[in-house]
Structure formats: C-alpha cells, structure tokens
C-alpha cells in the first residue's frame, strides 16, 4: 500500500504502558488527548527515536520495526520527517543550511518549491536565533519535507507560536497537507487545531487509543465527552458550499442546509462546520419573525441529563432526504426540556445561533 502507515505497538515504562493500533493514510491524522497520554511516545516509536517492546510498524507495506522478524531500522534509514515541538533547528547553521541538511539524492522535492510553499525565501541567510517562533517552525517543516520523507510526524507544531499569530500559520499547514499528499501524524492537545486540520483523529489517553475515526464521527463518540469540556461540546459536520444567495453562503450537509456569512468561501468548496451544543435552541413549532437564520427540522434521537442538571439532546436532521442524515446536539436546561415535554422520537425545530466554519478557506481546497 502506498502512502500509508500501519502500526501495532507496545511499549512499557515504569508506571506507564503504551499499547496502540493505528492506521494512517495521506492527509492529516490528528493524535489528540491529555498530556502524558502517550501521543509523543507514539510518534517517537514511528521515528525510531524510541524502540517498542513488541509489535510492528509498516510504512508503505515495508517494516520499519517488527519484533518477530527482528527488524528495527535506525531513524536515518526510515525516511520519516519529524517536526519537533520547538523546531530543533541547528543553531550553528543558517536557514538554508538547515533546510539542505536532510536533502537525499536528487529525488528530493526542489528547494525552491518548498521555500515558496512555506514562505521561506527571505529567511534563507538568517540564523535560527534571529527567527520568530512561526518562522522557526516553518523552517523546521521545510527541513523535514526536503528530506523527501514518506510520512510527516508533527509534535504540537503550534505550541511555540504566539497565540495571536497562530491564525496566520494554519494556511501553511493546510498547504502542506493538500500539496504534499503525505500521511501526516499531527499531535496536539488543542482540539481546534485538530478540527481545523485533520481528516481523521485518534484520542489517546493513558497509553491507549480510546476512540478513532473521521473527525465528525469521533466527535459523537462517548469516549470524547470528557475531553470536549463543558463549553466545547458539540458536533463537527462536513459539507459543501453552494452559490451565494442574499449575500450568504448555503452549506449543504446530509439532511440539512445552513446559511453562513462567509463571502470568502468558493462555490463547491468542501467545508467543515462546527456547531456547539450551547448555540442550539429547540422550539416545538417553527418560529416566525426571528433573526436566527438557521432553523432546521429535526427528530430527537436521544437525551442525556448532565451532572449540572442540563440536558444534551441528540437531534437528527431531516430537512432533506438523506440516507444517513447528520446529527447535531442541543444543550438546554432540564426545566426547558420538561416544559416542552421533550422525549425520544419527537419532531422539533433546532434554532442554530452560530455555525463556525473551520475549514474550506485558502487555495487548493
């Protein structure tokens, strides 16, 4: 299989055991979970920086590690690109020398292309000590890509970037994702990064993979609940942007259609929407004369009372015919649920106050 990673590994430390099975295809696979859960250990095992106790790591079908066959390639023979948390640029070399350090043979991607992709043209003569956090990280990504890797491992690449400049950094990562066509393992404990960048994700905690799959499915997994937190609870949906009407862009999802105010969105673009549970209200009758744009007909598919007395209501969209319609979640008070007499199977209207588009901008999408 070309461009894919498949691993099944076990590694024990005193008081901690990592036991993980994972597949990754081209595109970004997010590794998400609490600190100390084993995310970085897992990509270190793929890189060959640490050695599993047992198991198998296959890249494009070729074993990098196989405890039964006695295979354990050293890091330099694995052709992996590793972008470390703090970049780890070589301080005694210029940006150019750093970028060229791992260039292998002539089959490597051209220097100029990578510099253009990451906006490094004006930095090549500088030394790492004079670069900003984002510039360092872009150089580190370029250095890894120029070594012509078969997979890219990224360990919290945004953690050393000034929060105000993070937004400007996403397009670079999106371009790498869309243009390099590599499997990328992306470690982060920031959910918004994963939602924005990843196609699939795995939740890792206490050394185990607790849940994995496409982002929109993962968000509905029960195992994710504790990690979403009170304010972040909600769903992630994939959709397509339609032609603008009334200056608004319609976003088609399975079983429904949202209107969003985003003039930058190109018609036909694939988008990822994030709808927080606390932004969804419920009405028995279709409200009229209301400023909320998105009022969707739904069926209640489940109800869960939270510890604080609020109720999470699982809603299936049914505004349009769809084989497997998308779900959204509404979070309302127990009093409201009682007042409206809500129960499983009821037909209601969801009032959605905010739809966040986390993906779909920029070229190449």
């Amino acid at each position: 299989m070309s461009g894919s990673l498949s691993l099944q590994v076990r590694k024990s430390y005193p008081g901690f055991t990592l036991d993980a099975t994972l597949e990754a295809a081209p595109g970004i696979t997010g590794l998400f979970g609490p600190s100390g859960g084993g995310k970085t250990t897992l990509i270190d095992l793929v890189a060959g920086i640490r050695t599993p106790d047992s198991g198998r790591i296959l890249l494009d079908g070729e074993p990098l590690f196989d405890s039964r066959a006695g295979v354990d390639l050293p890091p330099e023979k694995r052709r992996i690109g590793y972008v470390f948390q703090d970049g780890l640029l070589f301080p005694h070399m210029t940006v150019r020398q750093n970028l060229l350090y791992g260039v292998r043979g002539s089959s490597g991607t051209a220097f100029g292309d990578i510099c253009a992709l990451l906006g490094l043209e004006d930095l090549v003569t500088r030394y790492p000590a004079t670069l900003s956090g984002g510039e360092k990280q872009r150089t580190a990504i370029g250095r890894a890509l120029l070594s012509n890797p078969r997979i890219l491992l990224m360990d919290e690449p945004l953690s050393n970037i000034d929060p105000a400049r993070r937004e400007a950094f996403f397009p670079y990562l999106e371009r790498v994702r869309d243009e390099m066509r590599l499997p990328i393992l992306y470690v982060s404990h920031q959910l918004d990064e994963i939602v924005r960048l990843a196609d699939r994700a795995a939740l890792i905690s206490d050394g185990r993979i607790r849940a994995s799959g496409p982002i929109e499915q993962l968000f509905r997994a029960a195992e994710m609940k504790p990690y979403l937190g009170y304010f972040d609870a909600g769903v992630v949906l994939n959709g397509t942007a339609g032609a603008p009407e009334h200056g608004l862009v319609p976003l088609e999802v399975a079983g429904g259609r949202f209107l969003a105010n985003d003039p930058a969105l190109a018609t036909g673009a694939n988008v990822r929407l994030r709808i927080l549970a606390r932004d969804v209200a419920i009405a028995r009758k279709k409200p009229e004369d209301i400023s909320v744009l998105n009022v969707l007909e739904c069926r209640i598919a489940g109800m869960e009372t939270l510890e604080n007395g609020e109720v999470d209501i699982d809603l299936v969209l049914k505004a349009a015919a769809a084989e497997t319609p998308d779900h959204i979640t509404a979070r309302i008070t127990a009093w409201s649920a009682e007042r409206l007499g809500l129960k499983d199977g009821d037909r209601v209207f969801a009032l959605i106050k905010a739809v966040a588009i986390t993906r779909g901008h920029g070229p190449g999408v």
Partner: protein
Amino acid sequence: MTAPFLQPPEIDALLLSLRVAGVAMLASLPVAILTAQLMARHDFRGKSFLDGLIHAPLVLPPVVVGYLLLVTFAPTGVVGGWLLETFGISLAFNWKGAALAAAVMAFPLVVRAIRLSIEAIDPRLERAARTLGAGPGRVFLTITLPLALPGLLTGALLGFARALGEFGATVTFVSNIPGYTQTLPLALYSAAERPGGEASALRLMLLSLAIAILALILSEWSARRLKRRMEHGS
C-alpha cells in the same frame, strides 16, 4: 648576567617547550574528543572505571605517573620495546617522551572541558539530525563537534597551558637534559638551583607567566567569539 634579553639556552628551552606542548595537544586531542563523546553520550560497563582512569593523573603524584611511563615506555618496558622494534620509535630521554608525559598529565583537563560542552548540547538536536537521514558519524561531525567547538578550544588551550607547565612526570620519565628534554619549568628549576642563576630564573618565570596569560586570554576570546556567532548569526 643581568641582560634583560633571553639567552640562547633559554630560547632553546622555550622552543622545546612549545614543541612538546604543541605536539602533546595535537596528538592527544582526537583521543580526548572521542573519549569525551564516549563519556558524554554512551553508557557501558566499566564506565566509572574508565572515568577513574582518565582522572588518575589529576590525583596521582606526577612522579608516580612519570615512573609508570618510565616502566612502560622505556625501551626495556613492554610498550616501549614493542614501539622500538616495530616502528623504531624511542621515547626515552627525548622530546617525544616529554610530549607523552605532558599529554598524559593534561588529558583529564582536556577531556573534562570537551565532555562538559558535549553534555551541554541538547541531545534532541542529534536525534533531529538522525531523522533527517544522517548516520551517527555524520551527526557527530556536523552537529556535535561544531556545537562543542567552544569547549574544544577551551580544552585544547587549557591542556596546552598545563602541558607547558608539566614538571614532575617529565623529569621522572625523560630526565632534565638541556637541549633535549629541558622544558621551561625544568630550566627554571635548574636555574634556581644554580648559584648565580637568579637572573635567568627571573626571565624564565616572566616568560612562563606571559605564555600562560596569553593562552587564557586567547581561549576566552575565541570562546566568546564562537558563542556570539551562534547567537547573533553574524
């Protein structure tokens, strides 16, 4: 004999000293670098024993080291006999022997300085280089060694100064023969012992002081220059 200028025998001692210390450093530096890398980056059985062995010249009386060298490297000794037979090299009572004694006595200082500077390098930089396709040898030459350069220079100059001052092991191993093994400290000792040698002793003392201070200043200056180049990238 109150001339302020160096006399020919003193110039001989100076040149001999520079040659002995210079050769001692150049020849022992590669060994010191590899030993420092081994101690800084690897764990193996007998590491503390090797550590003790490296540091032995610091704590042993120099006469003991000199005598050990004499027993081992004299033409009648195990290694000395083999060297003479195989390569025709004799270390007894000549400047090469003096260089060996100086190198052995300076070795712990040199290894220590280099080891500290290697240990100060973030080992993750070396790992990053491995993931970029560099084998251990290339990592050492392109990452470890350049980053350890300030410590390496300090170590080499410190060792050079220590080698210039070597007395006990040298006099025991290769004796004190003017023109052959009489380095600056030995010449100073002889002059101080000789009636009427006070002026010569004074000149040799000032000379030794000047060389030592020069070496220290040079070491500081070069280390700072290297550090600045790395930090500000000029």
